[in-house]
């Protein structure tokens, strides 16, 4: 395509609607319309100019606001569909098969269809992410397509415009002027904080041009935000681990090399309705128990620099901290959150080795349920050997005891009881409230005496290095929105012809009311000719025509 030469001699790039230099209408459509289309200053936008190659077509597709809005609407509907049933992250099932069953069992055929369509994990689905990606592309292309020509055009704009540009502005007036009209107008406009440029017999007053960049700035903010979200898939930027920590236990923090965490104790506190809480009495009576605080008192240790790898000692205390909901422990870019708890997990069980007949005790032994030892020597020469330990006993399979989990929920012990009377040893299998003697009746048994329990804290270990990027994106977005919405770009063109006639035109990207208020002051001060709002005239004419039709 060829460049367009304007009557004023300026060469405009193909696709230009209004001459970049003088503002004359270059297309037939513009020439025939009463008002010029001032959006993007009548510049050549790539999307409106080229439509040949595949790249043109893709560019044109994504630069369209209609397409952008359509993507937004599709995303909106998709997001809503994802809330019809809970997402898989919120259902009490973890494996693929149990999740599928859960939807079918709980929600019947609706659940089955929902799961079949993949809506149970909608927000991580390929197509949903692709939609977000398309939105990002649309943000970039639609912004570039408009910003680049608009920026160039506003940067290079001339003071003097052709009368045909001026009289096609929405705000327009012409009439006789005095000799000092231009100077007076300049003074008043300066007072109103306009930037003034003059050229020969003309004046251009401009204010708030930066507001034109608002949309592009907020789009940049969104792009930065989406980029930050994408970045978390890169290794090293994001850590999300869970850590179950028992009271009194010290553990290495997963994915946080060199750091250890000890739990001094977990505390669950409920509202009592007493003391200062009497005001809540009625509410507590209605709903029952309400939790007041979940807290794990922890000590953070760091491996000393000179410590040997794997050595248990050589840890230096970094800090003590009570982790509570809303008050995570923070260190070195990581944060540890109070997320869950288990109360009264079994810690140790104490038994007495007793003679079944005489009920005489040969001594006591305590088995640590997390870290049991193999042999327990009792005072009177008796020994208990722990042949097998099943922390979460779930039954026998092929005669072998099984454990469902490594957690001591239902401990089972296979023990050999050796006493001076039974030096060969007697075998016994013990679970809570039950004893099995697989190799015949025994003379001795282990009698349960007591159990120690402790609480377990469910902690989340988190690092998210993308947060500053997301924050920056959000900040830029907000700045852009304020810039574009709360300010506007106002311009006046004033010219005095050789015969003293004043031409006056004004334009703003929004808030015409404010523009007119400014102009009224200038008109009064500098005795400019009266102006009209040509859009209002057109509207009135249309309305009159309609009413005329209705009457006839």
């Amino acid at each position, binding site marked *: 395509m060829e460049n367009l030469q304007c009557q004023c001699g300026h060469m405009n790039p193909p696709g230009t609607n209004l001459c970049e230099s003088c503002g004359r209408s270059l297309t037939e459509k513009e020439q025939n319309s009463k008002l010029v289309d001032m959006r993007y200053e009548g510049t050549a936008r790539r999307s409106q100019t080229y439509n040949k190659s595949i790249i043109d077509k893709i560019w044109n597709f994504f630069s369209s606001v209609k397409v952008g809005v359509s993507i937004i609407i599709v995303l909106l509907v998709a997001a809503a569909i994802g*809330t019809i049933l809970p997402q898989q992250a919120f259902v009490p099932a973890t494996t693929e098969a149990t999740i599928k069953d859960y939807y079918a069992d709980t929600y019947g055929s609706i659940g089955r269809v929902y799961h079949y369509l993949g809506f149970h994990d909608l927000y991580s689905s390929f197509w949903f992410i692709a939609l977000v990606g398309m939105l990002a592309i649309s943000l970039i292309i639609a912004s570039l397509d408009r910003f680049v020509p608009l920026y160039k055009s506003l940067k290079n704009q001339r003071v003097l415009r052709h009368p045909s540009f001026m009289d096609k502005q929405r705000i327009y007036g012409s009439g006789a002027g005095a000799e000092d009209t231009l100077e007076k107008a300049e003074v008043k406009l300066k007072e109103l904080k306009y930037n003034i440029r003059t050229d020969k017999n003309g004046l251009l007053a401009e204010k708030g041009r930066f507001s034109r960049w608002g949309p592009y700035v907020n789009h940049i903010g969104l792009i930065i935000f989406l980029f930050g979200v994408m970045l978390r898939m890169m290794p090293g930027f994001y850590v999300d681990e869970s850590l179950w920590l028992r009271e009194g236990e010290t553990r290495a923090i997963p994915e946080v090399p060199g750091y250890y965490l000890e739990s001094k104790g977990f505390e669950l506190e409920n509202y009592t309705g007493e003391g200062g809480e009497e005001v809540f009495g009625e509410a507590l009576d209605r709903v029952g128990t309400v939790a007041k605080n979940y807290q794990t008192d922890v000590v953070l240790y760091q491996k000393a620099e000179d410590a040997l790898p794997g050595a248990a000692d050589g840890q230096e205390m970094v800090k003590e901290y009570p982790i509570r909901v809303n008050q995570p422990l923070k260190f070195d870019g990581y944060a540890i959150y109070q997320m869950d708890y288990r109360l009264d997990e079994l810690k140790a069980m104490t038994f007495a080795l007793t003679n079944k007949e005489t009920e005489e005790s040969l001594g006591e032994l305590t088995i640590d349920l997390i870290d049991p030892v193999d042999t327990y020597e009792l005072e009177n020469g008796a020994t208990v050997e722990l042949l097998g330990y099943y922390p979460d006993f779930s039954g026998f399979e092929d005669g072998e005891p099984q454990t469902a989990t490594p957690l001591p929920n239902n401990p089972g012990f296979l023990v050999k009881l050796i006493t001076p009377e039974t030096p060969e040893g007697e075998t016994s299998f013990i679970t809570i409230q039950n004893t099995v003697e697989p190799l015949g009746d025994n003379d001795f048994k282990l009698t349960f005496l007591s159990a120690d329990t402790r609480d377990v804290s469910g902690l989340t270990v988190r690092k998210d290095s993308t947060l500053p990027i997301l924050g920056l994106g959000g900040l830029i977005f907000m700045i852009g929105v304020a810039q574009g919405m709360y300010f506007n770009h106002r311009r006046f063109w004033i010219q005095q012809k050789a015969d003293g006639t004043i031409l006056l035109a004004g334009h703003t990207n929004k808030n015409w009311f404010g523009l007119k208020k400014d102009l009224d002051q200038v008109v009064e001060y500098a005795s400019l000719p009266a102006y009209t709002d040509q859009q209002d005239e057109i509207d009135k004419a249309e309305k009159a025509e309609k009413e005329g039709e209705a009457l006839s």
Partner: protein
Amino acid sequence: MNLADLSSNLLYVAFVAYLIATFVFGGAVKGNKEGTFNSEKRWGRVAITITLIGFIANLGYFFTRWGATGHAPLSNMFEFTTAFGMTLVGGFIILYFLYKTPVLGMIVLPVALLIIAFASMFPSEVSPLIPALQTNWLAIHVSTVVIAEGILAISAAAGLIYLLKVVDPTKKSKQRFWLEAIMYSLVLVVGFVVASSFFSLTGYEAEFTYVDKEDKEAAITYAMPPIFGMNEYVALTDEAMAPLIETPALVHAGKLTTVVWSVIVGTIIYWLIRLIFRKRIAALLKPFVKNVNLQLMDEIGYRAIIIGFPIFTLGALIFAMIWAQIAWSRFWGWDPKEVWALITWLFYAAYLHLRLGKGWQGEKSAWLAVIGFVIIMFNLVVVNLIIAGLHSYA
């Protein structure tokens, strides 16, 4: 009188003031002769004064309750919804002083009244905060959201006025149907309030046990006569009415019963109005909008969104993400409330882009503004009460 009692009395004062102001605004607008604004000018001033008195009482309710509970009263359904009613009036006051439009008050105040009445149907005693809510972010995040939603709702009110003026009630059309549907749904809220108040004043209670969707035994107390019975229900209250239909475990028959009672009562009220006045409600309101300047209503609707959208972004997305990162260790988790906040935001973003195009100002914008309000109400009511999630504090 302790602080909590003072607080609820101030809420009554606000309620009554809004009620009176509604009628004064209505009279102010109705009293105009075609094409003149004398009545508006005279009575509009009286009406806005009453509104301001009500709003000050409303703020008084808010801060005395804050004092009584020790936390920002934005922590449950009653508190949040009441605050929404308050910010709606606040948004109206701002726009009233910008544009001097009594007709806006005539629409906004009754809606605010309905919202406050709706809120009062939920348990309103002062309740303690669960650990997740014990932070200043409660006040920061929720108050920003509720202010933003109050302002955004004004755009729906302006849209509604626009539609009342342009939709012809004498000609059958899609527009006429949907406009009346909006009116009908507002009456349904009245139905809910009337039904709840009636059964609560008469002290109705019926207890049942049932089997929930996880196959566990559970108990429920109906506050309204059970039309629907829970899955495998067993009545514990002797003289209570037997449920007519038993629902499967997936459906919460108790909530369904409340909804159906509200629809029944609301529909009766709606048809009573229709029978007495022999007109659609939209047509009844038509004389009030005869003097409305359509361009101005469009401008108010747009301006409300321009003000509300950035505040909503800040409160419902940015502050929400910061708090979620602190409390739940992740800034975003696709919890239903989060998703619906995103949907609301996307919707208004679409609105702002559509208005760039020609032909989307005026009536289409008005419809969009009303739909925006429907989305906000959906997020408030349905997501809280039906779609359970982390935000279900009611």
